[in-house]
């Protein structure tokens, strides 16, 4: 009896240690260590006599940058939620023809490389665009592009949760005399609040650290901290200032995340979850029809038009329409690339596969710690896990290059890019898994225990299948993020094996309409690829019931 007891507690402890150890080791070596190296290099490496942080804080223009960064992020997040929550509702609750396709399609903007989106919006919102008004270098262009980017975050994160919320709860409110709107405000909204908070936190951090879009659409007049860090580091070569800005940004984000995490832990209750297929209904009546059609129109206009502009650009030449840009992709003689643009596709797919596996293993372990542990360990862990999201991809790539030569020289390793991509993707895996993990009822675990399941079996048999859906969504995200990741990759991509976004960027940097066309064609391929991944993932998703 006692030996059995001992064995089980040893196994339990080993399991718990692995859950904490794997993400801790991974983040410690591939995130904290490079980050500290960057900051140390910046802080100690300068030759000024004053402290760079004091300089940065004393500069009115840099304080202005910080203020702009904050308010545009708040505005972007609010706009995205206002448009995205109705969209999440429609895709989570209604069953209609093409739903799966649309669900996959709205995710495409999210995974497009910033260079491509920036260029697409320059065309769309420029004087020659279909709107006919020039919004370039205004904050509107930035806000619109941010909504375009992050709409999918709200639809995916809120939707995945929403479709498992028991619709009978809303029905109960309706029967008790609540209007559709009041039922939403008093019943549905409090129920989905954990996922709305999760989505909002992701969108905020994303827009707070927005780089490519602001750089391209904001010109030199409007800059976020990210852009300023980039400018200080690359244009002005003021590494200490850039490092000081990074440090300030990190401190701000860390504080925000800690507050969010504290709030979320208090706000998340347990709830009966239902299989997604059960909660969706067909469109009935006029109100339903308008809700669905209205939202699909928003998606079509807001998300479709930039993509359409991109598509048209890829087949337009000076003398009409042609597929020349696509047929030219197999050529190896494009100046900026050492390989054919097509080879970049294979490179990206391989990296994405490895990166998503790493991200899901590390991310799920971390999510389990955040979800099942109470108190400070969980809170600190949660905040630390979000840091890669709040850290600029550029900083991550730069840090890899600076730090990962010792003790193991990984800088020339083919693992470097997947590791960086996994690092970028892990916060998404954690954010989308934690709310679902927390919502699995304690009763079910206890039932499993009284039926003879040890803690590991309980996790495998009860938590995993219920959380699996969220994990699959997370895998898809990780894969797509890896396909589109640009900031970090631009630092560490090997010249002979560029990824898709790097190839596009290099092509964009070349003069000539031929290479520009090829860049557009390659962008379209990337778009189709990521959309396809999402579509395939949706097919594999667990919709019915029974054995998982």
């Amino acid at each position, binding site marked *: *009896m006692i030996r*059995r*007891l001992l064995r*089980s507690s040893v196994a339990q402890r080993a399991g718990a240690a692995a859950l904490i150890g794997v993400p801790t080791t991974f983040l410690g070596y591939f995130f904290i260590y490079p980050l500290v190296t960057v900051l140390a290099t910046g802080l100690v490496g300068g030759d000024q006599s004053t402290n760079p942080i004091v300089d940065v804080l004393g500069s009115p223009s840099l304080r202005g940058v910080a203020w702009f960064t904050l308010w545009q992020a708040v505005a972007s997040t609010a706009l995205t939620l206002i448009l995205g929550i109705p969209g999440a509702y429609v895709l989570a609750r209604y069953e209609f023809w093409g739903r799966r396709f649309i669900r996959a399609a709205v995710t495409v903007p999210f995974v497009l490389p910033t260079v491509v989106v920036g260029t697409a919006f320059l065309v769309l919102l420029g004087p020659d665009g279909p709107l006919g008004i020039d919004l370039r270098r205004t904050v509107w262009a930035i806000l619109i592009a941010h909504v375009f980017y992050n709409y999918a975050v709200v639809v995916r994160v809120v939707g995945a949760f929403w479709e498992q919320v028991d619709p009978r709860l809303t029905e109960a409110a309706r029967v008790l005399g609540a209007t559709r709107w009041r039922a939403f405000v008093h019943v549905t909204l409090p129920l989905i609040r954990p996922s709305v908070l999760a989505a909002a936190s992701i969108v905020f951090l994303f827009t707070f650290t927005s780089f490519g879009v602001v750089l391209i659409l904001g010109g030199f007049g409007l800059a976020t901290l990210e852009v300023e860090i980039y400018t200080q580091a690359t244009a002005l070569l003021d590494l200490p200032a850039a490092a000081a800005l990074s440090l300030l940004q990190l401190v701000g984000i860390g504080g925000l995340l800690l507050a969010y995490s504290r709030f979320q832990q208090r706000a998340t209750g347990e709830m*009966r*979850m*239902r*299989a997604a297929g*059960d909660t969706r209904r067909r469109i009935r009546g006029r109100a339903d029809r308008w809700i669905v059609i209205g939202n699909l129109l928003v998606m079509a206009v807001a998300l479709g038009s930039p993509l359409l502009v991109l598509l048209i650009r890829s087949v337009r030449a000076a003398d009409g329409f042609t597929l020349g840009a696509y047929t030219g992709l197999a050529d190896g003689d494009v100046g900026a690339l050492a390989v054919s643009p097509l080879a970049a596709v294979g490179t990206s797919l391989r990296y994405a596969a490895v990166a998503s596996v790493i991200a899901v293993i590390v991310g799920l372990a971390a999510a389990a710690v955040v979800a099942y542990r109470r108190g400070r360990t969980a809170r600190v862990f949660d905040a630390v896990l979000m840091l890669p999201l709040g850290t600029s991809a550029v900083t991550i790539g730069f840090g890899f290059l600076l730090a990962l030569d010792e003790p193991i020289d990984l800088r020339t390793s083919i693992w470097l890019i997947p590791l960086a991509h996994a690092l970028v993707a892990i916060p998404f895996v954690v954010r989308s898994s934690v709310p679902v993990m927390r919502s699995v*009822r304690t*009763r*079910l675990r*206890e*039932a*499993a*225990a*009284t*039926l*003879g*399941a*040890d*803690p590991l*079996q*309980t996790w495998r*048999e*009860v938590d995993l*299948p*219920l959380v699996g859906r969220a994990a699959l969504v997370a895998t898809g995200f990780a894969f797509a993020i890896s396909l589109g990741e640009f900031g970090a990759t631009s630092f560490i991509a090997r010249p002979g094996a560029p990824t898709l976004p790097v190839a596009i960027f290099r092509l964009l940097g070349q003069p000539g309409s031929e290479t520009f066309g090829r860049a557009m064609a390659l962008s379209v391929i990337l778009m189709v690829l990521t959309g396809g991944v999402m579509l395939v993932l949706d097919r594999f998703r667990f919709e019915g*019931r*029974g*054995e*998982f």
Partner: protein
Amino acid sequence: MLAVTDVRVSFGDLVALRDVALSVPLGSTTVVMGPSGCGKSTLLRVIAGLQQPERGHVDWMGEPIDGVPPHERGFGLMFQDYALFPHRSVGANVGFGLRMAKWDEAAIRARVSEMLELVGLAGYTTRSIGNLSGGEQQRVALARALAPSPRVLMLDEPIGALDRDLRSALMREMRSIFRGLELSVIYVTHDQHEAFGLADHIAVMRSGEILRTGSPEHLWNHPGSAFVARFIGHENVIDRKAAHQLAAAGVIDAPNPMTITPEAVAVSPAPTGPGHVVESRFVTGRYRTTVRVAGVDLLAAASSAMPTGTRVGVTISPEGVTHLERDT
């Protein structure tokens, strides 16, 4: 034998179990009854190993099992809300414990069919949990708890959420299953009908304490306190205060707490009598008349109706009286 000794559990300021001791004989059904919030569910959780007591211990066959995790205790627990796995079929739910015990597939299939047949759900194996009615879910939960042949089966208000007809049908079925399999059962309920319908032994709880234990017959005849008497269904429970009032009016001899069966309360019209009729109802073939005498309401079994307000004389026949030791 399963024995709980001096178990104490508290949640903040609330003491859920106050040094509770209970012994559960094997092969029979022990019903723990008490009002909601009395700690009876917590007691089950302590026995199952889901709740660690602050002090006291649980012994199985004379050996303490306090450090044994729930999955190694071999005790089955059927939850009040069933806690069926929503992502698994009926068959997979019932077979869960067997899979944990590493039975082979064929044996699991056979056992699952056997269990579903036992609870009257033959052919439900591939059904999904979401489409079951409340009564069907209850049966699946019972089959799931029974399948691994638990050493002790615990049921937490297993039929409380169901309607009355279904409750009595399921009660009959459970009784025959428990007897047929010679199970050791701990059954928790707040319902006296369930308790007396199923129990070999009853323990009455209140506010984290066990007040009284015994066989149904013994408990009925010797409830000990006014609270227990009321809770198990005695209809005329006279506490000390009421006894004083009745004795002063000359209805009873001595001012001691007692219970009186309605049949022992004789009521006759008397214009100058000390009591009057409060109401007279026709229930299950007989009249049940409530009379108020000396400020105390007494229920009397009567053969004919009496108009409300009728002045009456009341006499108590001593063979219907059970003496109580205290009020609570």
